[in-house]
Each structure stands twice: as C-alpha cells, then as structure tokens.
C-alpha cells in the first residue's frame, strides 16, 4: 500500500469526517466533483453538510449549500442533533440556497440551470467560497423527464464546479427500482463516487460507506460501517493497517497476590486479559479486585458493565472486601453501565471509544465483552471486537474482559476470536464434589509468561479473593472441605514424620558417639603396641651393640688379627658365617 505522499497527481481537501479522510488518504479530490449516492435516509445530506461545517469551523472556509429537496429550516433542524451551530454559520460562512421548485410549477419544454449557476458564481466570488454542495438534484432533474437533458445538466454542474475552482459534492438518491438506472451515467462523469448504505437487520440499523471510485488515487475499497453519533457521521475506527504499539515488560497486579505469582508478576501492562466461565464463577469479582488494585496504584480506571448497574456491582464487591466508593468519589474510577440491546455493535464500540477518550484510563474492564459479540451477527461487526482491542492496545490500556463461556471451546469463543487474541486467558469453572460446589481457576494461556498450569481453587471471603492449592490424591482433584480434610491429614502426617525423624536422628547420633569412643579405644591400643614395638627394637639394638662391643674387646684381648676369627668350640660352630670378621 502506497503512502499518501506518493500521489501528487490528485490534490485533496479534507472533509474532517473521522475515518473518511483516512481511507481516501486525504479527503475529497480538490477542484472537481464528487458524487454521493444512497437511498433515502442513508446520510447523504449529513455527509455533504458535515464536510462544509467542518471546513467552516477548522479552516474558516466558506461554502455554498444548494438544497433541491429540503428547506433551510428543515436542514438546520436536522443538524441540531449533531451540535453544529448551523444557524450562526449560515450567516457567515455558509451560503444556503433554497432551490426547491414549487409543487404547483408547470413545465413546458426544456429548462436548465444556467441562471442559478450564474448566481452561485457571483455568491462564491463574494464569499471566497471553496466548496459547494448540490443536495438532491434527482428531484429537479426528474422533472426534466428526459435522460439526455438530465445528463446535460449534470455535465453543466460538473463543468461549472471545475471552472469555478470549487470542490463540489452532488448528492443523489438512488432507489431499488430500475427507473433509477438512468442515473448510472453519473458515476462515469465524476472523479469520485461515495456510496452510502443503510439497512435494518432484525431491528438493528446498520449503516455503511463505500468509496466506489476515486480517480487518480488509491483508496480503501471496503464497505465500512459508519455511525451517526453525537458529533455527526464518522467511520467506525478501522484500526491501523499495521499493528504497531509499544511493548513493555512492566507487570501490574491482577488483584490476587497468588495469581500474580502464578503469572510471574501479574498481567503485562497494555495487554488484554480474558476471564471466562459460567455465570456465578466470580469473573466480575476478579474484575473488581483488578480495578481496586489499579486504583490503589493511583491509575485511572474505566469499568464498563453490561446489563448490570454500577451501584449493584459496587454493593456486590463490598461483600468481598473491595470498596469502590472512595475511587468513584475521587474520579479515579469511572463506571459505565449500558445495555447490550439497543444500539448496534459499531455504535456501542464508538460509545466505548468515546468513554476512553473522555476518561483517559490506564486500566479498563469490559464485563462481559461477550455481550457485544453475541449481538446481531452481521459481517460488518464481525471484527469489531478485535478492532476495539487493537485500539486499546495502541493506547497502552490494560483491559480485563469477561466472557460467558461454560467450556473452554465454544462456538462463541471461536466466532469472535476473543480467546485467540487474548494475551492472557483465565478460566474459572465449577467443580462439584462431595456435595460441595467450588470454583476452580486455571490459566489457559499467558503469552510471554511461563505460567503454572496447575488448577487452583478460587476462594472468596469477606477478606478478599485468594487462591488455594488444590490437592490431587489418587488422581482426584480435591477442593473445599475435602481439601481441608486432606490438608489436616497431611499436617498430622508431617508432624508424625517430624517426630520420627528426630528420634532416628538421636539414635544415629548415639551410635555415632559409640563408634567414636570405640575408635578412640582402638587408637589407644595401637599406640600402646607401637610403643612396645619401639621399645623392643631399642632393646634389640642395644643388645647387638653390646654384643659387637664385647666381640671387639674379646678379639683385642686375644690379640687376634683381622683375618682370624673366633672359632667357637666345635660343638657349637654356627652354620652360617655371619660374623663380621673373617
């Protein structure tokens, strides 16, 4: 997709209608004619008028509005719902021409718009107008009752617009009947064609806009949902083509300390969390503690609830020790309660976006988000939830959504895809056991976190919300009283084991002491023997020394020479001649 800078061929002029200038990469083509077509009540006049009003307000541009169908008073009255001060604009920046033909007028032969265009030229020059709207020309041209003449007049208007250097919008009603086929030629004559649609599906109104043609420029070709909100027409937020948002490692508390631990710190800031579960599984309570934690940190929070009033929610949360009152009072917390039935999903999300813009929260709760997605199925709103969550992500808002789901995979989840795009998904279910009903909490997924996949028991008390370990014994998960019983048993078991260990330890110590003592005794014995051996050696050594000494003396006494040796008496001649002298 090319960027807007790369198309100098067509200069554009903004309409100021939110979303339209984006999908056309700049607005309407400047200095030429745009055709706005649609059925009755599809918003053609609103579109055209809004572009003039926006230009008058923002750039102080003057414009001309030529009304062929409605009176000035009628148009001004219709415009007051949008808060445009049309009456004062009409005096200064907006020239309004009532171009309706009286119903009593008689037609005789061909006519044309030359005269009125001439007048308009004078007015345009007077005011320095930049824009002009011809609203409802089908009314006039129908009177001509001659396709050739009709065509000619539209050419005339178109050429006049170009020559005058104005940016023009022609609005034209199209119907279902084939008689309107003759207006098909109009599309080929102009540079830009916008088609507005309006249908009612199962009692809910759906509006859309489609740019059918835009000569010389890229544009978004999709049929896009629009809303007629308090400020006028706007395309519902399409979301950017590229999902670009800052990612942070910061974690914020879920409101339950144990859950934060399971998530290695808490929810990542700026991500979205889905809490699913059957009714009554305390999803709203988890939203409540999250909100309270955020407010305690001083962060602005927006709590959106469907089909349950704020006062009721506040009261219910008090029973688990969560108090919203001070935060509501200080304005840190805003609660917005609405109904799912009523406006269509695009309007609902537009409302929420408005709430976000007004309150600027850092944290948000939508309880339940599934209320919106279960509304009337329509192709236009299929991805509305996703676009809204994208919007929040780009704003860096951490949002906790709840969803009514009994199981972990239902059609609802897959249809909306909320579970797919959720960064963290926590599921709370009921476990019925031994006549008791307890709540089990599981982290189904947590992107970017190595989370525990163990099931914990969600315990609510008037002190708050906590998670308790779940016991698995003989392959069964135990909660509630069963868990408590097992806990007690294990405590007793642990105590007994402790005692047994202590006993064993002292026994071992005793035998060790004995062994040490024995070792000492043996060592003493060894020492004694060694001493004995030493003594023996000394004695033997001393004895042989004496013997040698004696021999030497003896030899000396006998005057023996070296070679002689003492010959012992024959009867005691030793076998070996081990005497030193030879």
């Amino acid at each position, binding site marked *: 997709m090319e960027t807007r800078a790369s198309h100098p061929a067509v200069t554009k002029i903004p309409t100021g209608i939110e979303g339209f200038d984006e999908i056309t990469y700049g607005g309407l083509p400047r200095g030429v004619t745009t055709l706005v077509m649609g059925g009755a009540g599809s918003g053609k006049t609103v579109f055209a008028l809004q572009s003039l009003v926006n230009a008058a307000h923002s750039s102080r541009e003057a414009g001309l509005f030529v009304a062929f169908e409605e009176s000035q008073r009628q148009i001004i009255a219709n415009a007051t719902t949008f808060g445009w001060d049309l009456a004062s604009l009409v005096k200064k920046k907006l020239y309004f*021409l009532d*171009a*309706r*033909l*009286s119903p*009593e*007028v*008689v*037609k*005789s*032969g*061909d*006519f*044309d*718009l*030359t*005269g*009125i265009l*001439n*007048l308009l*030229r*004078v007015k345009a020059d007077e005011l320095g107008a930049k824009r002009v709207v011809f609203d409802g020309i089908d009314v*006039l041209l129908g*009177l001509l009752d001659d396709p050739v003449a009709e065509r000619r007049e539209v050419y005339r208007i178109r050429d006049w617009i170009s020559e005058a250097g104005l940016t023009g919008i022609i609005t034209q009603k199209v119907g279902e009947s084939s008689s309107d086929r003759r207006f098909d030629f109009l599309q080929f004559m102009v540079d830009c064609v916008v088609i507005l649609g309006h249908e009612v599906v199962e009692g809910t109104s759906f509006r859309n806009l489609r740019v059918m043609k835009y000569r010389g420029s890229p544009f978004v070709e999709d049929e896009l949902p629009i809303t007629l909100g308090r400020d006028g027409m706007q395309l519902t937020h399409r979301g950017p083509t590229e999902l670009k948002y800052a990612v942070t490692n910061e974690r914020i508390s879920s409101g339950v300390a144990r859950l934060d631990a399971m998530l290695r710190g808490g929810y990542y800031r700026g991500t979205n969390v889905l809490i699913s579960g059957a009714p009554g599984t305390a999803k709203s309570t988890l939203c409540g503690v999250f909100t309270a934690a955020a407010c305690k940190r001083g962060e602005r929070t927006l709590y959106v609830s469907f089909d349950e009033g704020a006062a009721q929610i506040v009261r219910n949360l008090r029973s688990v020790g969560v108090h919203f009152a001070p935060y509501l009072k200080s304005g840190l917390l805003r609660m917005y309660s609405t109904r799912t039935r009523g406006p269509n999903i695009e309007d609902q999300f537009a409302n929420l976006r408005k709430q976000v813009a007004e309150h600027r929260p850092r944290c948000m709760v939508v309880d339940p988000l599934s209320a919106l997605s279960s509304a009337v199925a329509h192709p236009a709103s299929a991805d509305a939830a996703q676009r809204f969550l994208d919007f929040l992500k780009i704003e860096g808002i951490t949002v906790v959504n709840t969803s009514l789901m009994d199981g972990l995979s239902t059609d609802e989840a897959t249809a909306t895809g909320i579970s797919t795009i959720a960064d963290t998904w926590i599921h709370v279910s009921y476990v019925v056991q031994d006549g008791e009903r307890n709540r089990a909490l599981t982290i189904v997924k947590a992107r970017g976190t190595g989370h525990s996949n163990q099931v914990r028991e969600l315990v609510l008390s008037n002190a708050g919300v906590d998670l308790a370990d779940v016991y698995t014994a003989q392959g069964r998960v135990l909660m509630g009283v069963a868990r408590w019983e097992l806990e007690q048993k294990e405590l007793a078991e642990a105590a007994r084991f402790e005692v047994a260990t202590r006993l064993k330890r002292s026994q071992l110590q005793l035998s060790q002491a004995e062994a040490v003592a024995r070792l000492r005794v043996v060592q003493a014995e060894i020492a004694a023997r060694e001493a004995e051996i030493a003594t023996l050696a000394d004695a033997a050594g001393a004895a042989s020394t004496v013997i040698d000494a004696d021999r030497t003396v003896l030899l000396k006494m006998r005057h023996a020479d070296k070679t002689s040796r003492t010959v012992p008496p024959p009867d005691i001649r030793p076998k070996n001649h081990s005497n030193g002298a030879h």
Partner: protein
Amino acid sequence: MRERSTSLPRCVLRLYVAGNSPNSVRAIANATAICAGNPDAGYRLEIVDLLKFPKRALADGVIVTPTLVKLRPLPVQRIVGNLSDTAEVLLALGDQ
C-alpha cells in the same frame, strides 16, 4: 384598439432567461409568439436576463431558466421551460 393599448394590461408576464442559451432564445421566441398570437388577452411581457442581473434570481426565487412568471392577475403562476408546449402554457395562463 386605442382603448386597449392605453388600458392596463390584463396579464403581466415576466420571462427570466439566461443570456443566449438555446432554451432562453426559444423561450423568448415562444413567449413573444404567444403574446402576439393572443392580442385580445392583453399580455405584457417583460424579459429579465439573469446573466446581467444575477441577484434577481435570488430575489425573485427563480431556480431554473427559462422561467415564466404570471404576475397579474393573481394568483402568481410559474411556468418553467422554454415554453415549447404552447397548449400547456396557455392552460396555465388561461385561468383568469
């Protein structure tokens, strides 16, 4: 005859045209012919060129050209078009 020319015209017509555009030229011709062809009716025709006096269109509420307005006798009657359908014109003017 003399009485007629000095008496007040019974029917005052004003034809708004836009310069020399084909429809305007035809309208002037048709209107003149109708007036000339019905001298007894006592028509008086005034021609206003909106290209020369554009603000007259606004003042007099003329949207398309040509527009023929019967100012008198009341009620005021407007006829749009180049007046090629003479019968239609006379019918509209004829209620007097």
